[in-house]
């Protein structure tokens, strides 16, 4: 059994909450007491139906203050897979929310209202999905019941969206007609949609290949913590603990520590107390080296044959998440995994319009939800890969030094 993390993009009007509620309900991942709770809240509805959208309902603080918290997580599983849904609320702060939820997702479901087809919001969600480099896109054409389950309506939308996908270079796009409200094509295939020959949405989610988005060629490992037991019998023990972000490491491999450039050889690899010959992407391990060299938290250990870039001048696409504006010349902290360095925003090249992809050169006021191309200068060299090549070592966050708040998501170019 493996794991798929996905995000649903759409607003309440597109039936996003109903879709998530339906997935959980029809796959029997909802418990009676949870159903009773939403039943109580649905009582005021005239039709007496249980409102599945309430399953993703927010906190009292959100209802009272009219705010939304960036992302809520939902879990369900089938015998084939465990699923983690990042449910990012729509409305005003959507760019920030979707960027956050998308950063950890392997798949995005883009909801399109069959009555309205591809609209500005569809383009916006697709642009964000492409910027965040989400490997798989599922375009779910919802509310098919309201267009008489029409095959023509569906086909027209598919043709329109194919244009969007082509412009953005989205390579893996799957289309599916659904009705979240009626459960058509969500878990079970639907009779009304018998002209559609693909699987149900759940079948798509269960069968999409997740492994091919894991990079096994470029070995990247950021040191999180150095383990040095202070006891007599282990006084030579020095283990570098961290998670392999991509690639594989074998005992005997030649490695380079970055940014220092020091070299050594892997003496042994431990996983939870057991020695292994080889370890691979996503495993948390302890590395031991043959030479006693200076390594600490924030250093990257790469295989000598495939090294990342190491620079102090970086170009990045930045999604601004701060409430205060981004100011050229301001100092921030750049955090890329365990490495934390001071950084100055040197220049803002352009602002990207997330509805049209148009670039507005040299913008002046950069505020919340803006996506801009920036140049950064860091106080010390940073090992990284281009985000488009490796999501795991190409993503970094900007932190406001004075408030400690995360104010930006960088996709390093």
């Amino acid at each position, binding site marked *: 059994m493996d794991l798929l993390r996905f995000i649903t993009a759409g607003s309440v009007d597109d039936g996003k909450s109903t879709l998530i509620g339906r997935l959980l309900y029809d796959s029997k991942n909802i418990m009676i007491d949870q159903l009773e709770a939403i039943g109580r809240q649905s009582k005021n509805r005239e039709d007496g139906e249980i409102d599945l959208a309430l399953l993703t309902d927010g906190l009292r*603080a959100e209802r009272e203050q009219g705010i939304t918290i960036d992302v809520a997580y939902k879990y369900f599983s089938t015998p084939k897979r465990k699923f983690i849904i990042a449910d990012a609320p729509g409305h005003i702060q959507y760019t920030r929310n979707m960027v956050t939820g998308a950063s950890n997702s392997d798949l995005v479901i883009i909801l399109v209202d069959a009555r309205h087809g591809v609209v500005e919001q569809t383009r916006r969600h697709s642009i964000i999905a492409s910027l965040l480099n989400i490997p798989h896109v599922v375009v779910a054409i919802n509310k098919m019941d309201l267009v008489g389950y029409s095959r023509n309506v569906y086909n027209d939308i598919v043709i329109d969206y194919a244009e969007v996908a082509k412009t953005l270079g989205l390579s893996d796009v799957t289309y599916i007609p659904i009705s979240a409200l009626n459960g058509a094509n969500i878990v079970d295939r639907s009779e009304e949609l018998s002209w559609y020959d693909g699987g149900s949405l759940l079948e798509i989610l269960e069968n999409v290949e997740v*492994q091919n988005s894991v990079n096994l060629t470029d070995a990247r490992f950021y040191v999180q913590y150095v383990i040095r037991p202070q006891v007599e019998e282990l006084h030579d023990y020095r283990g570098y603990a961290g998670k392999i972000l991509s690639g594989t490491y074998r005992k005997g491999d030649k490695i380079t520590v970055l940014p220092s450039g020091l070299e050594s050889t892997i003496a042994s690899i431990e996983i939870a107390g057991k020695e292994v010959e080889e370890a691979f992407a996503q495993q948390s391990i302890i590395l031991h080296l043959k030479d006693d060299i200076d390594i600490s938290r924030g250093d990257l250990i790469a295989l000598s044959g495939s090294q990342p870039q190491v620079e102090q001048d970086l170009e990045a696409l930045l999604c601004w998440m701060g409430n205060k504006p981004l100011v050229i010349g301001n100092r921030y902290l750049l*955090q890329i995994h365990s490495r934390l360095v001071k950084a100055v925003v040197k220049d803002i090249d352009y602002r990207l319009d997330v509805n049209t992809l148009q670039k507005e050169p040299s913008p002046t006021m950069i505020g919340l939800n803006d996506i801009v191309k920036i140049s950064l200068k860091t106080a010390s060299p940073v090992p990284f890969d281009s985000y488009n090549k490796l999501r795991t070592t190409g993503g970094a966050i900007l932190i406001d030094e004075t408030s400690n708040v995360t104010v930006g*998501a960088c996709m390093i170019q």
Partner: protein
Amino acid sequence: MSYRLDYLDQLESEAIHILREVAGQFERPALLFSGGKDSITLVHLALKAFRPGKFPFPLVHVDTGHNFPEALEFRDKLVEQLGEKLIVRNVEDTMRKRHLAEPKGKFASRNSLQTYTLLDVIEEFQFDACIGGGRRDEEKARAKERIFSVRDEFGQWNPKLQRPELWTIYNGRIDKGENVRAFPISNWTELDIWNYIRREKIDLPSIYFAHEREVLEHEGQLVATSRFIQLDPSDKVSVKRVRYRTVGDMTCTAAVESSATGIDAIINEITATKTSERGETRIDDRVSEAAMEDRKKNGYF
């Protein structure tokens, strides 16, 4: 060689990564240990993250005085085996020191008083990060919790001021007086925990397995009789075969009828159950729709 990780391996690796981030980013972290299955799982994960080194944090238990004796025995045995440091602070001491009122009522729970003791112990040891076993599938306020969740000087969670959490990069920077609650098993469900306990052969306190116990039936829930609970003449008390699905205080945790004496049987029962973990076993969440949200805002973990 297959380069695929099973979902439990992925969850395990993610949790180890988070534990090591806490160790790498904070000066004085602590692991909040309740004696329940989630915090026992956390301890198991900490062994995988830090052995052969020592844990870079002590275990901290906030003892309400209403614990199941089996859970306390288990705690002491586990700590002895581990050779790690355990700090216990008693809610009763806090109540005395701070002149707090003993809660009243049939199931007088000290659950909300724990927060005082927790905030006091954080201040006493100047902890800057507290690792907890909270899971997002437990409750909807938890579903919106970050993995690194910043609390202000009063221990308060402000849902409005949560930091966006991107990729697997955790921003643990805080000002003096603030602290972070870190949740390594955020993405685990109840069933994931049980499957992991089975796979790793993790020991649990005996009350998780079916046993005979005198219980009182109250609004469809089974509550163990104990000196902490007031019995009324009209109460229906009987001996039943039960197990616990969660282990909190004796005053606010309900048992479920069960004949499951082993892990396989428990997993079968949980897979088949139609009621959520908290819905079935927590008396404290029934008080109001937003009970957990309110407790968290006040500093509860």
